[in-house]
C-alpha cells in the first residue's frame, strides 16, 4: 500500500531523537553538536542561515564538529558562504555539495576549493532565485537559523536583522523539515513574534550575539573628488531628467556620494521631492542627511545595519518597523520590491565589457551574486506604468506604438574608469568568461547583462545606451566614457563626437558641471562623526568606523 506521509513520519523520528537533549525545545549550547548529530542524516539538504550580514555562527561551528560517521556528505543550500567554517565543512567532509548566492569574504578560498574539487557546485544564484528554489527543488530538510531571542515555546524575535529567516523557515517547516534556531537570549516574552513557535523545533542559547557584518557603512571621509563628480553627473544626468523617485542603490562609494549630495547639490538643483523619495535599500548611514532634510519618504530594507537600530526606531515614518518599534527587514520581499517596484538600480561593479556586461568576478575570486542582479534587471513581468519607466522605454524604441511599448527599468552602472591600484573598470573580455572556461561552467558569472544596462556613468560622462541603435554605437558609447583605459583610448573619435552630438554621451560640460566644483565640501557629511551629528546622536557606528 502506498504511504503518503513518509516525510512527516521521518521528521517526527528526528524530532524525537533530538528531544532527549532538550528541555522543552531548549538545548544547551554545549549539546548543539549532539543535537545536530541526532537530527541530521547523511546527504541531507541543510540551510545554514547566513547572508552578507547576519550569521548563525554558533550553529555553523557546531555543525563543523559533528561525528563524520553520523553526519556527512551534506548538500548545503544557503544564501551566504561567508564564515571560514562554511568552507571548513567541505574540507572536513561534513558537506559535499553546494548551492549558494553570495561569498564575499570567502571568494578567493571558494574559488580554490572549486578548482581543487573539494566542493561539488550546484549553481551560484541571486538571492531571490535561491529562495525560489527552496520551494521547488532545493527544499531544506534541516534549517539552522539565527534569531535575537526566543520565549520558552519557541516564538522567535529575529530583530532588525530578520533578513532571510522567514523565507528559510517557510520552506523548511511547511515541508516536513526541522528548524533549529540559535538565539542570543531566552526571554519570558519576545518583543514581537517574527517566527511563530510551531515552526521552530529546537532552540540553542548562544553565549554571544550572532555575528553581523556592517557591510553598508561607507565612511564619507574616504569619498574622493572623482566619486563626487561622478555622483553629480548621475544626479543631474539621470535622476533629474527621468524624475527617478523609486530606486535601489548599490553599496559602493559612488552611490554613497550621491546620498550625501542630495541635501546639498540636489537641493540646489531644486530636486527635493522630485527624485529619490522611495527606496528598496538597507539602512545606509550615508542616507541619514537626506532623510533628516526631508528627502526620503519610505525605505524598505533587506536587512539592517550595525549601529542604525535606534535611528530607525526613531524614524518609523521612513522605515518598516514592528509593533515593538524595531526594524522589520525581509530580504525576499525587499528583493521583490527592488525587482518590480523600483524604476532604477544604480550600483558599481568591477569590470564592464564592450557590450556592457558587468561582473564582480576576477579569475581568482568568486564573490557570488547576492541581490544586485535582481535589482539590476528589467522585470519582464512588470505591468504598472511610471514616468521614468515609460520614458526609458520610449528612448529604447521610439518607433513602437505607445500603448504596446514596454517601459524599461533604468539600470545604471556607476564607477570611476580606474579602480583600486589603477585597475581599469573597462575591459575587452571579462575575467568571468575566463573563469567559466577554466571551470567548465555552462554560464559565465555575469552580474548584470549588457542588454539590461541602460546607462554607464563615469567621471568622463554619462553614456545612455538606450539611445544606441547598433552594437557598434553601443560599443563606442561605452568606449566614449571609458577615459584613459585601453578600452577608452581605442575609441573611434569621430563616432564618439557624433554620439555626443546626439546626447548619447554627455560630458560634464554638456550637463553644465565644472569638474573643479566637485569638492568634498559638497558632501552633506564628510565623516562618520558628521553622520552621528545629523542623526542627533541616534546613529551609533561600530568601533572600526570611529575616530573619537
Amino acid at each position: 500500500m502506498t504511504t503518503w506521509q513518509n516525510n512527516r513520519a521521518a521528521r517526527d523520528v528526528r524530532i524525537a531523537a533530538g528531544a532527549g537533549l532538550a528541555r522543552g525545545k531548549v538545548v544547551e549550547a554545549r549539546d548543539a553538536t549532539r543535537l545536530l548529530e541526532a537530527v541530521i542524516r547523511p546527504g541531507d539538504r541543510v540551510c545554514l542561515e547566513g547572508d552578507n550580514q547576519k550569521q548563525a555562527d554558533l550553529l555553523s561551528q557546531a555543525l563543523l564538529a559533528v561525528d563524520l560517521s553520523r553526519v556527512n556528505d551534506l548538500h548545503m543550500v544557503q544564501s551566504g558562504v561567508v564564515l571560514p567554517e562554511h568552507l571548513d565543512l567541505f574540507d572536513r567532509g561534513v558537506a559535499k555539495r553546494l548551492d549558494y548566492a553570495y561569498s564575499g569574504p570567502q571568494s578567493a578560498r571558494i574559488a580554490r576549493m572549486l578548482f581543487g574539487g573539494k566542493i561539488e557546485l550546484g549553481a551560484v544564484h541571486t538571492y531571490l532565485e535561491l529562495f525560489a528554489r527552496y520551494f521547488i527543488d532545493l527544499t531544506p530538510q534541516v534549517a539552522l537559523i539565527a534569531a535575537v531571542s526566543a520565549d520558552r515555546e519557541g516564538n522567535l524575535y529575529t530583530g532588525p536583522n530578520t533578513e532571510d529567516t522567514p523565507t528559510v523557515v517557510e520552506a523548511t517547516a511547511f515541508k516536513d523539515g526541522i528548524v533549529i534556531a540559535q538565539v542570543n537570549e531566552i526571554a519570558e516574552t519576545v518583543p514581537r513574534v517574527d517566527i511563530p513557535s510551531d515552526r521552530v523545533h529546537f532552540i540553542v542559547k548562544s553565549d554571544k550575539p550572532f555575528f553581523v557584518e556592517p557591510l553598508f557603512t561607507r565612511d564619507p571621509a574616504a569619498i574622493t573628488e572623482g566619486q563626487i563628480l561622478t555622483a553629480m553627473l548621475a544626479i543631474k544626468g539621470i535622476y533629474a531628467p527621468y524624475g527617478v523617485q523609486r530606486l535601489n542603490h548599490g553599496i559602493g562609494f559612488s552611490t554613497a556620494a550621491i546620498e550625501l549630495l542630495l541635501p546639498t547639490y540636489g537641493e540646489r538643483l531644486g530636486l527635493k521631492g522630485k527624485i529619490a523619495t522611495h527606496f528598496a535599500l538597507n539602512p545606509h548611514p550615508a542616507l541619514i542627511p537626506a532623510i533628516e532634510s526631508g528627502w526620503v519618504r519610505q525605505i524598505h530594507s533587506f536587512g539592517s545595519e550595525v549601529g542604525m537600530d535606534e535611528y530607525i526606531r526613531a524614524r518609523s515614518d521612513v522605515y518598516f518597523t514592528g509593533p515593538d518599534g524595531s526594524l522589520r527587514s525581509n530580504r525576499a520581499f525587499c528583493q521583490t520590491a527592488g525587482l518590480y517596484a523600483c524604476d532604477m538600480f544604480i550600483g558599481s561593479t568591477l569590470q564592464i565589457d564592450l557590450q556592457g556586461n558587468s561582473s564582480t568576478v576576477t579569475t581568482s575570486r568568486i564573490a557570488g551574486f547576492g541581490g544586485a542582479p535582481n535589482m539590476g534587471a528589467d522585470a519582464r513581468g512588470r505591468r504598472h506604468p511610471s514616468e521614468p519607466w515609460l520614458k526609458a522605454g520610449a528612448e529604447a524604441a521610439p518607433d513602437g506604438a505607445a500603448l504596446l511599448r514596454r517601459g524599461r527599468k533604468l539600470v545604471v552602472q556607476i564607477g570611476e574608469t580606474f579602480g583600486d591600484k589603477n585597475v581599469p573598470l573597462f575591459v575587452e573580455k571579462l575575467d568571468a568568461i575566463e573563469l567559466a572556461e577554466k571551470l567548465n561552467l555552462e554560464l559565465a558569472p555575469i552580474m548584470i547583462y549588457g542588454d539590461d544596462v541602460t546607462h554607464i556613468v563615469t567621471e568622463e560622462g554619462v553614456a545612455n545606451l538606450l539611445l544606441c541603435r547598433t552594437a557598434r554605437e553601443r560599443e563606442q558609447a561605452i568606449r566614449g566614457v571609458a577615459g584613459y583605459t585601453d578600452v577608452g583610448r581605442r575609441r573611434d573619435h569621430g563616432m564618439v563626437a557624433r554620439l555626443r552630438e546626439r546626447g548619447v554621451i554627455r560630458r560634464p560640460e554638456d550637463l553644465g558641471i565644472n569638474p573643479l566644483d566637485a569638492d568634498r565640501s559638497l558632501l552633506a557629511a564628510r565623516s562618520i562623526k558628521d553622520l552621528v551629528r545629523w542623526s542627533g546622536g541616534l546613529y551609533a557606528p561600530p568601533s572600526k568606523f570611529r575616530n573619537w
Partner: protein
Amino acid sequence: MEDLRFQHRVRTRAGGTRQSAIVGVVASGNLEVLVERVLPDAECALDIKTAAIGFGEVWTAVVGDFVERYSPGGLRFSINDGGARPDTVSLRLAQAVRLIAENGQ
C-alpha cells in the same frame, strides 16, 4: 620611479599673474603639481616623477588632452606622483591652472 617629460607648443598664454602655485599631496593614489610661470608664452612643459612604472602612454594621452583643453602657455608643471589615477591627474592639472590663473604673487 619613472621620469617622464613632455613639451608642447600651445596657442595661448595662460591667464593670471601668479608666478607659481602648488596643489595636491604625494600619497598613494595622489600627486602634487607645482606650476611655475617660467616659459615663453607659446610653450608648456611637464616634468613627471611617478611611482607607477609603465604608464607612459596613458600620461601622453592625459597630458595631450590637458594641453589641448587649457592651452597652458608659459607654464612649467613639475609633478611628483604617488601612483594617481588618470582622472585624479587631470583634476590636479586643472586645479593647478585655476590656481595660477588667480591674480597675486
